[in-house]
């Protein structure tokens, strides 16, 4: 049925149109007013087509402040499972955490993020996982700007012949470098918290650079 309509005529559900509408408001130019949502997803594995999201953790960051009562943490009900990954994220299939369906999780998530700038470590993966989930439910892709702390961290490193830059820096390395406690590592919200603190420190470093501008930063 849906195939015969032109693309723009698709009637998306309210939660999506509400989410979409939030982008009508332009992002503030002032970094202190800008809302960032730092997130992390725990998944059944790394295959973007087969694997599924098990939990999403996110927190909101504005003006160097994380409000603890504005956090987002959901556990999803999933059929698909890899036993070998349970060791990492510790989420079992029969876990007693209150679970919700994937669609429900996405709806809550979209209302939480609105038009905020998303931040994640190796953000490409989280974004793809979320987009795949949206696609399964017939929704378009996320519209938010996304920043990747792994890439931003690389930019903070000094250009020196003595320092070999690598392509990837793990969240553990960042936590060590910035002296962030690794408590709750490998829970979505715990990782999001580490990412958030690392992001704040990275942002400070980048801000002191001569060519820094918010526009460029969010490009």
């Amino acid at each position, binding site marked *: 049925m849906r195939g015969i309509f032109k693309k723009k005529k698709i009637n998306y559900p309210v939660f999506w149109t509400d989410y979409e509408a939030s982008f009508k408001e332009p992002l503030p130019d002032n970094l202190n007013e800008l809302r960032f949502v730092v997130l992390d997803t725990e998944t059944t594995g790394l295959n973007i087509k087969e694997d599924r999201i098990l939990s999403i953790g996110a927190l909101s960051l504005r003006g*160097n402040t*994380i409000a*603890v*009562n504005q956090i987002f943490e959901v556990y999803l009900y999933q059929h698909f499972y890899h036993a070998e990954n349970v060791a990492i994220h510790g989420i079992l299939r029969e876990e007693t955490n209150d679970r919700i369906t994937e669609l429900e999780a996405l709806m809550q998530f979209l209302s939480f993020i609105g038009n905020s700038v998303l931040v994640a470590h190796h953000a490409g993966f989280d974004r793809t996982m979320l987009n795949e989930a949206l696609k399964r439910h017939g929704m378009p892709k996320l519209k938010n700007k996304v920043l990747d702390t792994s890439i931003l961290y690389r930019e903070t490193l000094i250009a*020196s012949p*003595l320092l070999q830059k690598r392509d990837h820096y793990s969240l553990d390395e960042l936590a060590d470098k910035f002296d962030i406690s690794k408590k709750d590592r490998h829970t979505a919200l715990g990782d999001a918290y580490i990412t958030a603190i690392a992001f704040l420190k990275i942002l400070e470093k980048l801000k002191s650079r*001569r060519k820094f501008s918010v526009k460029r930063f969010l490009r």
Partner: protein
Amino acid sequence: MKCIRLLLACAFPVYRLPLTANTAVMKNTISSRVADFLKNYPPFNEMKFEDLERLSEEVSILYKIKESVIFEQGEAPHSHFYVVHKGAAVLRKKPDNDIVDLCDEGDIFGLRPLIANENYEMEARAYEESIFYTIPITTFRPYTQKYSEIGNFLIESFASNMRNPYARSHKDKLLAHTSIGNSNTNSGLLDLQSVHYSKKLIACGENSSIKTIAATMTEKKVGAMLIVKGKLPIGIITDKDIRNKVATGQFPITAKAKEIMSAPVITYPVKMTITQAQMAMMKSGISHLCLTEDGTDNTKALGILSKHDIMLELGNNPGVLMKAIKRAGKFKKIKTIRRSVQNLLKGYLDQNIPLTLTSKIIAELNDACVKQVIAIALKKIKKEPPVKFTWMALGSQGRSEQLLHTDQDNALIFEDVPKHQQEKVKTYFLELSKMVTKGLMHIGYAYCPADMMASNPEWCLSLSEWKNRISHWITNPGPDEVLLSSIFFDYNLVYGTPKLLNELTGHIFTMTEKYPIFFMHLAQGALQNPSPTGFFRQFLVEEDGAHKDFFDVKRRALMPLIDAGRLLALSHQIKAINNTSERFEKLAELEPNNGELFMACSYATKALLKFRTKQGLLHNDSGRFIALDSLSKEEKIKLKRTFKTIKELQELIKIRFKLSNL
């Protein structure tokens, strides 16, 4: 479609408030993290954990960079107060910007104005990069009524001392710990500051034998033992008693405590200030005071205050600080001692004590801190090092020119081992180095941005690996190799065996003798620093970046001297002198015909270092960048005079190493 929509519409109100719904049902990882931290500190330690968790859910986590303002003096109160989670906050009061207090992890500040509904009486800034928990007063207030302990804590905090409510406000916390040289950044306040004393009371009964008492005192590293009877103090035994009464043969070591103790004990109330304590000790000519609840010997003994504690409090004696460093069992303790070291440094500079002496003392203290960090790490790792090793300080620390906290540069050499053991041994030393570099970061040495640290596998090598690397640098002197060797060749032994280091030095001298062309490249590197002044002898300032319009005293003035000093010292094969001004003094001795210039260089180095240190103390940074308009005319002239010396020195190097022909 319609059906789904309807379903969504019904469900939507719930989604609108996902946060409250979630936090109520599920434990929020972040808020538990906050609660876990708060429960260790007063007054939160009085709260039931459920209450604390509920409070924690309303907390915000605030990140502040060094020196950024949290609130201004005279500003209307915020809706929340602050708890230091990581880092520290400094409270200053106008008009003189006197430091009123330094708040450490777990300390509360900015609470009183919220309760009294007044504007802030002082300014608060982040003393270092910090994370604060901000607690809304509306959430907190109900608990002050629910828990009488919290109410009391606040009353006691605010009632006593109006001039310094903040320092008093965590008096309870001070009572609960043995604190060292904590918050006395301002000597003017000593009269008001309550003393910190050992709460862990070392005491025993009157029938204990001298032998056990001496053993306990040795184990606990204390100079006095309180003798108690049912918690009441009845006597005291100090080192002196044991020396005078036991070592002289007057009493056997099997004698009982009551036979040799000094009694009655001189007691004082716990609420005494540093000045009062000093007076008390002077008055009665004793070195230990017993503190009791009400100041008489009829109440419970709470602690012993020694002369040592007071000296430390005053932070003005390198010997005492040195002792405290060696006693420190945790990184955190060293961090607080280092603040006292900084105070000491400031005092020396203010009193115009010669920089040679100042830098020697400070370098010794810094060195002791690093040594202690390594000692703590070795204890923590629980395994003996598989072979001998040497921990080296590189760069400014290696040259003993590091007066302020700067980045850490270090490296490690370990003895050669058979190939099959290499990996295992290296893994051990990397693990050790990781702990040490982390410890160093905790006490105030930032990680090296170029990762030039022993925790980097490239900088944690066996002796022959180091020899190979150095040979490579000397035989292939590209710009990178010259840069690397210029940082590395200022190495200094910090910990471990000197043998490995001596062998390495020998190797460097043999190699440079064989490849004299290396000096030419080193000389070229030494001349590459940008000039301090322009054609009209005006200062050249930075043109862009975070330090636009500041003068870079390190790169434009100090580095040329340091680089030249190293080059000339190396070419003369001067061993074991790393300090730049000392290098020049030695050079003046070796080359009498250039003596005057070298002595001028030595003087210029000291003058510039002092400049940098003073600026650094003023701005709580490395002092590298100087705002020229903050200098007096006299200072500017002084600065320019050193530039002339630098120019002459560079001419000499150009000619000696035949660079003009290149």
